[in-house]
């Protein structure tokens, strides 16, 4: 009994520590759980990127399931996800609205002209205030907002085909269904 316990204790403690560290290592520290999930999307009314004299508000989307994608021309990984968004826009499965975050208007427009524009329209958040309201800290970020205007999902970082097919599209289908 005593000979066993000499070994079992350190081994047990070691195993526990390894499990904790192992879980810690596989977590992505950049994925901060958003407190906004299942909360109403923060209200905003912003000028549009293209049509400066028109505004866009989350209220305009009441009754629809839609994506809000935070992007900027200075954001390198936005370019990575861009083809995915273009494809999604073509498929017509869910409308994508852009939040052009802390960008210069001509830069943003030029970027869309160059790489294609998957957005129904983009709101222009030059000061990044609405970004803060939405808890944005790493562009790109994408929100799935339901018919009642509640945020149901948030993707931090680029939308990959996997994320789109395994998380976003099934969720959109469920919310629409």
């Amino acid at each position: 009994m005593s000979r066993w316990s000499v070994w079992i204790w350190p081994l047990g403690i070691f195993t526990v520590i390894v499990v904790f560290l192992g879980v810690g290592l596989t977590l992505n520290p950049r994925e901060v759980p958003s407190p906004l999930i299942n909360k109403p999307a923060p209200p905003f009314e912003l000028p549009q990127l293209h049509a400066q004299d028109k505004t866009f508000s989350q209220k305009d989307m009441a009754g629809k399931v839609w994506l809000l994608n935070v992007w900027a021309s200075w954001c390198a990984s936005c370019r990575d996800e861009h083809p995915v968004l273009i494809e999604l826009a073509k498929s017509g499965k869910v409308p994508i609205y852009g939040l052009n975050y802390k960008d210069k208007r001509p830069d943003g427009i030029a970027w869309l002209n160059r790489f294609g524009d998957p957005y129904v329209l983009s709101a222009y958040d030059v000061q990044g205030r609405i970004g803060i309201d939405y808890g944005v800290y790493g562009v790109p970020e994408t929100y799935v907002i339901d018919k009642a205007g509640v945020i149901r999902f948030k993707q931090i970082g680029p939308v990959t085909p996997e994320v789109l097919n395994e998380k976003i599209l099934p969720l959109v289908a469920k919310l629409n269904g």
Partner: protein
Amino acid sequence: MRNYLFLLIFLLTLIAPLQAAPTAQGTPEGNLDQRVQRIAEELRCLVCQNQSLADSNADLAIDLKNQVREKLKQGASEKEVINFMTERYGDFVLYRPPLKATTMLLWFGPALLLIGGLIMLYRRLRARVAAVTDPELSADDRARAAALLEGKMDNGSDDKKSGGKARRR
């Protein structure tokens, strides 16, 4: 000449904070700076996660500091500002995580480990002390020890006897 210039600049840099201090304390603006600083030290920069907002010069950190300043100017309390941030970025934004059911282990884990370690150490030391304590010598043992010391050891039956004793102990 050049050395004097350097010395002068050096001395001026020493004086600079002294000059800044009275204005910083005197005006409400100065108080505001201190309050912004105090809050910024409590909040995590989300872009560079091991820095506080106060330490960080990341774009977002600067925006958030401005937001803190603005809220304070509008008359928000420090608690309200902290709440404003946690509503948007979650508890993660706090350098001092709040005490709740999910953070119990985080808060008390180290103390538990310490207490557990101390208990184990205590028991081990007690066991060691018990093992090391001199056994009482019987009159027989004493006589044998004395005989050994005098070099009059007899390799006969006595040896077997003492062997038996040792095993009994």
